[in-house]
């Protein structure tokens, strides 16, 4: 199933047009992420919390996007939907040509495995497994044979300069190293999107810079990166910054505009 981009309601800001305006593109080709009017309600003990109130977001291949917003703005919810960890209450979300909003549990799991590399704030490495085994995990779920798995995992660790630490367990690694292992794990299947949720939230500023450099290198090499953060300095590393407020997109602009606005 495809959709003409003219059907994609874009954000209200003119800035988005400048960044993403590519009439004729369809979800799954140039567009790795397309969400149309997605909402997400949570039932909190009888009270309905509307975390997202209709978000239209389109991300092209090779973009490096930061999704920003204060806590409660709905950015984590948006990330969960974009990452196919969750399905919207209403609206559609496309991930590299797959309609995530229509899928059930196992189909979502397979899409995640195929298309997304997750990087979490708390690293979320398996504590009892070595760095190598952690990186191999997505390949295990993809059914890749063990020799091939090891080869690709080692390559991914090489990309984050941790090949020499591959036999160490997470508790034998520094915070920055752990996050780099997590990045290697996210990259090992060459996903359509690298999806990072507050990737520097648990790191000191020097290590944060180190991780941001890794992201920049990946983006420069053509990796699509979507990063969720509440820190504007971190968001300013991306080339495009989407700001959420109260479950809606409040601004969507190039980094230069965002930085300029910040400085005012």
């Amino acid at each position, binding site marked *: 199933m495809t959709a003409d981009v003219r059907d994609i309601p874009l954000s209200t800001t003119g800035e988005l047009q400048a960044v993403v305006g590519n009439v004729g593109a369809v979800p799954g080709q140039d567009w790795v992420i397309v969400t149309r009017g997605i909402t997400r309600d949570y039932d909190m003990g009888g009270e309905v919390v509307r975390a997202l109130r209709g978000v239209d977001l389109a991300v092209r291949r090779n973009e490096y996007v930061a999704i920003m917003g204060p806590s409660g703005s709905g950015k984590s919810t948006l990330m969960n939907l974009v990452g196919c960890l969750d399905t919207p209450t209403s609206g559609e979300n496309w991930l590299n040509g797959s309609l995530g909003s229509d899928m059930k549990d196992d189909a979502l*799991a*397979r899409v*995640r*495995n195929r298309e997304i590399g997750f990087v979490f704030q708390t690293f*979320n490495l398996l504590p*009892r497994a070595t760095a190598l085994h952690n990186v191999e995990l*997505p390949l*295990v*779920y993809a059914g890749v044979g*063990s020799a091939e798995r090891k080869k690709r995992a080692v390559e991914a660790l090489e990309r984050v300069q941790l090949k020499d630490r591959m036999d160490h367990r997470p508790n034998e690694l520094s915070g920055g190293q752990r996050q780099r292992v997590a990045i290697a794990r996210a990259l090992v299947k060459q996903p359509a999107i690298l999806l990072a949720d507050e990737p520097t939230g648990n790191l000191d500023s020097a290590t944060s810079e180190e991780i941001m450099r890794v992201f920049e290198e990946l983006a420069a090499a053509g990796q699509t990166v979507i990063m969720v953060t509440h820190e504007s300095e971190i968001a300013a590393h991306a080339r495009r910054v989407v700001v959420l407020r109260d479950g809606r997109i409040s601004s969507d602009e190039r980094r230069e505009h965002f930085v300029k606005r910040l400085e005012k």
Partner: protein
Amino acid sequence: MKILDRLKMLSEGVVIAFDSIRVNKVRAALTILGIAVGVFVVTGMSATVQGINSGVSASLAAAGPTTFFVTRWPAAINSCNGSADSCPWRHNEPLSLDDAHVILRQPGIQSVIVHVGSSAQVKYRGNNLPSARVDAYTADWTEVNGGDMAAGRNFTQGENTDASAVVVINVALRKQLFPDLENAQAIGKEIMIGANPFRVIGIWDQTGSLFDDADEPKATVPFEAAYRKLRFGIRWLDLTVKPRDGVPQDVAMDQAIAALRVRRQLKPAQDNTFFVSTPEKVMELYNDIVGKFFSFMIGLSAIGLMVGGVGVIAIMMISVTERTREIGVRKALGATRGTILWQFLVEAATLTMIGAVAGLVVGGALTYVIRANTSIKASIPPLAIVVALAAAALTGILFGLFPAYRAARLDPVEALRYE
């Protein structure tokens, strides 16, 4: 996921299981214990039963394929409380030597071995056994008892008829009476049975069996000698009848029954006042007892497995809760419900299999102890090992299903957020 990939993940599941056991030693030990007890009971018991079985078969086989028994009492389990209803056979006329002779005169019968067992004081100089087993047999007894003459000879028909004071002792008794002598050196010595001197003419190296422990010191004397010299009571005779070669068992049995009925002047409508049983019938009866015993044991072990199973639920629920986040991560990375379910089932089955192995080891040790210290040749049947492992795995899977299902159904978003 394909079956092959599932199998590849087995090792991972097993490693995780060992890991969680290491982390929660006490909890795991309690879980494993129930399973281990269940398996231990089954293997220990089946090993013993197996050992007893082979002993029974061996001693019945030693008697010969067509041999049968004539007794005053039936080959059955009955509780005799003294009333006529509970054991009418008490009114049966005891078997006598004349009965034996009547049977022996039948054309199909080769030999009739008369036996009565008792005990008496047996001593040689300073070596005194106050109450040793003494069996009285007619001369052919070696034909229906498992074993060989280790030295010397058996008593003859003539010695039996003459009530000669000769005795065949088994190796165990030789060791007691003549600890310093070889088997052959004991031949010709005179020992005292009660107040009567008996000359040792043979050493019997008997095959032990369930009914007849080779380690029990035992003297065998001619029947007539026992009757006349030792004053053995003969109201509890039993006869072992061996048909001639080529005569079918049932034919020989019919001859024996007819002869006894005639001798006892029974009318056609009257029941036999004696019992004839075959080794098969004894075996059947025995199997019946063992079967009941066995189902009781299986019941016990099922309880063990149930207890273990409940433990599996508990430990797996805790494991799932503790690893909620890990499950979230695995799901984020692409693990499907089936994959997670499989992982936890493997873990649960590993737990119970460890219990089974522990039970097998202890059961094996018990089997060894039984073998070493009794005449029961206990051995764990290979099938029991397979069944024990399979039952344990099944228990793990069955009881692990609920926690595993919970894990598989976790919402990845909530699981990732879990602290």
